[in-house]
């Protein structure tokens, strides 16, 4: 095959172009920190990285939702712990009032404190968090319980659900009628009855109130156990999501991030190749028979 200077020149410029193209691709990878800069660089890698990104985005949102659920349930838990204190105090007072050493006058004095506890329970039952009534179901703009003597539940049975994982929801509220009433009457009603019994010195009524308060405390304990279980579940899920997040981010980084050490060594390799190409090219192009025909 005849080789002409045109062929040699073309071959040389092409090889230089190829080398420079590789250089530009490599330095682009270094600059962006990513080895996939266009979908066509690595189609299957691109597909994987998009999948990871979708999952990571979902997980981030779930984590956000979980912390939202956490604050709601935490708030309800704090309210319930206050309710426990109030009811325990009321039971102590009822027990004290039920003893024979008390007379109508002392019972009336105790009644004042019970009235106070009754109002406190109502306030707790009508707790507001971020301007929402926590125990009103969906009717978050309505007071959960009306004023005495009825203390009627004014909310509904709506459960505000938050998405905590793929296809998994959790209710972050408990409708008030499931919390503040037992055996058909609300805690406030029971306390109100106790108050009336103390005023009227109805000792049988006071005895009955102790049983009611015991039931109420049981009920509160149940609710708190429920809330506690939900909070635990959220905690577990949070650490689970956290570790999924880390794993996915590692995968994502492996798929799309540049291996810096490898890229730099590739660059020096290409640089060397380019340099030798330039040197040999310069020598080859200056070679000609004409140089020797003088």
């Amino acid at each position: 095959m005849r080789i002409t200077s045109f062929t040699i020149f073309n071959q040389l410029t092409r090889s230089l172009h190829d080398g420079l193209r590789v250089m530009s691709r490599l330095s682009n990878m270094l600059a962006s920190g990513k080895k996939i800069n266009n979908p066509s660089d690595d189609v299957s890698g691109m597909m994987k990285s998009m999948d990871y990104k979708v999952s990571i985005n979902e997980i981030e949102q779930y984590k956000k939702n979980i912390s939202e659920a956490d604050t709601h349930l935490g708030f309800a838990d704090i309210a319930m712990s206050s309710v426990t204190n109030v009811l325990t105090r009321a039971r102590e007072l009822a027990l004290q009032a039920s003893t024979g050493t008390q007379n109508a006058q002392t019972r009336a004095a105790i009644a004042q404190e019970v009235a106070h506890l009754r109002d406190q329970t109502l306030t707790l039952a009508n707790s507001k968090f971020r301007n929402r009534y926590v125990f009103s179901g969906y009717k978050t703009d309505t007071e959960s319980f009306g004023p005495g003597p009825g203390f009627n539940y004014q909310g509904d049975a709506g459960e505000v659900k938050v998405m905590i994982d793929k296809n998994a929801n959790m209710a972050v509220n408990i409708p008030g009628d499931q919390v503040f009433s037992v055996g058909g009457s609300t805690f406030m009603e029971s306390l109100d009855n106790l108050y009336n019994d103390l005023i009227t010195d109805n000792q049988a009524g006071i005895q009955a109130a102790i049983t009611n308060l015991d039931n109420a405390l049981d009920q509160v304990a149940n609710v708190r156990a429920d809330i506690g279980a939900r909070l635990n579940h959220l905690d577990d899920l949070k650490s689970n999501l956290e570790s999924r997040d880390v794993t996915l981010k590692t995968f994502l980084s492996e798929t799309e991030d540049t291996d810096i050490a490898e890229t730099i060594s590739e660059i020096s390799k290409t640089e060397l190749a380019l340099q030798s190409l330039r040197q040999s090219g310069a020598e080859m192009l200056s070679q000609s028979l004409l140089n020797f025909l003088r």
Partner: protein
Amino acid sequence: MSLNGLFDIGKSAIFASQTALNVLSNNIANVNTPGYSRQEAILEVARAVQIRGNSIGRGVGSVEIRRHYDNFIHLQIIGQNQSYGRSYSLDRGLSHIEQIFNEARDLGLGNPLKDYFNAWQDVSNNPEGQPQRTALLQKAKTLVQTARQMESDILGTLKEVNGDIGTIVNNINTITSNIASLNDKIAQLEAGLSTQEASYFRDERDRHLNALAELMDYTWYEDTNGRVAILAGGRSLVSDAKSFSLTTQVDVDGNRNVYLRGEDISSVFHRGQLGGYIAVRSDIEANSLHGLRKLTASIVKETNILHNSGYGLDGSTNNDFFDALQVYTKEYSSGGYISSSTVTSSAALTLDEYSINFVTPANYEVYNRQTGALVTSGAYAAGSPINFDGIEVIVDGAPAANDSFLVSPLTNLITNMNVAVADTQQIAAASSNATLPGDNSKALEIVQLSQSGIGDLGNATFDGYYQGIVTDTGTMSKAALDSLTYDDNLRFELEKKRDAASGVSLDEEAANLIRFQRMYEAGARIIKVTDELMEMVINL
């Protein structure tokens, strides 16, 4: 044989070496001329004379100036140029589109889509919260704007492709008219002197044929007079000394089509830049543009269906979240027209495009343009509605046989797309008509959309369908780039082969220069010696 004969031999050597030197100087001068074919003076012994039974040569003559040329390689180069041209256009069009969907740099619909559904989750976490609702409207608007930007970028690329088709056709016309005039010159020259080819004109014509091959696919042959005929899809473009111009015309879809003598011949081009652009145009339309529109339409449709059934904080219901889908129609008919087209049930929409074809003026058939399936058919009555897949179209007037109407919920979707909800109170997070600010169940249903398979999208999720578009775009762009590299390398190899046969080697010419210089010198010496011999004879 006389002494005088020696003069002739010497003279012939001088003349022949002069001719050879002329030819090789011209070679040297054209060492860098693209497409130049090396020439060589072919020397031959001048007719010998018989002298007493021996034949003695009478010097040398240059019988021919031969052009070094390999027709087979030339044919291969033309074929390869056609492939190269196609790959070039495919790569050019698709690398553009790829950037529009470049999720590697977070360009495209990926993030706005995630943000939109995340905003719905935030609303579901805080159904009464104003900030979350305002944020949702913002994210929805970003989604709309991004889709609109992407669509206009895709349409811009298509417009560029169509513009390029016009430019290429102009170039083709220039080249074919040049070839036609070269045909004429070559035929005239070669008819006069059959042994001598019109090398320069042939080289020039070859260059034109190569350039034409990069632009379009054609078949060609050379007739006995040295003229080439060029055919595109069996239709003559160049014949003898005549060339026929291609013209272009923009059709109703905005596509520029190629016409020859009044006939649309766009479909005969498969290779060359022209064939490449015509192919890439339909690739982009069928994949990127249609995919983007269908995805967006599906988001609008599914969100609206749920949102319509929900209730806002103000108790309002039956509100569209995005502007409702509308039907776009286009008429390919002179007698008939569409008097109204409406969406009767958005839930029944398939998000495909349809054409209503009139087989005869009295009967219509409705075809799904994506699946090709016959949707419905019937007898035509002017002004009476045609119903299919949630669409009602009323055709009026007198359509003729083979008239057709395009019916599509997609074409103008993104252009007309807007967030319909203006008042944050109207965002329907609740699914009950009692005004319940804490009710987030509808918002949760809408959130679920992002994780469930959508029937219209072949049971893919929104994210999944979008990933499909991106991957398809990436795969097509990668394939185009690969074949461009391959075709380029192959073309280079062929050019090397052509160069091996036809290229000028300076070393070779330098050696020949010396060779013919010596020949000239020796020829001159023959004359001198003969002159001395003559003198000697005269002085006897």
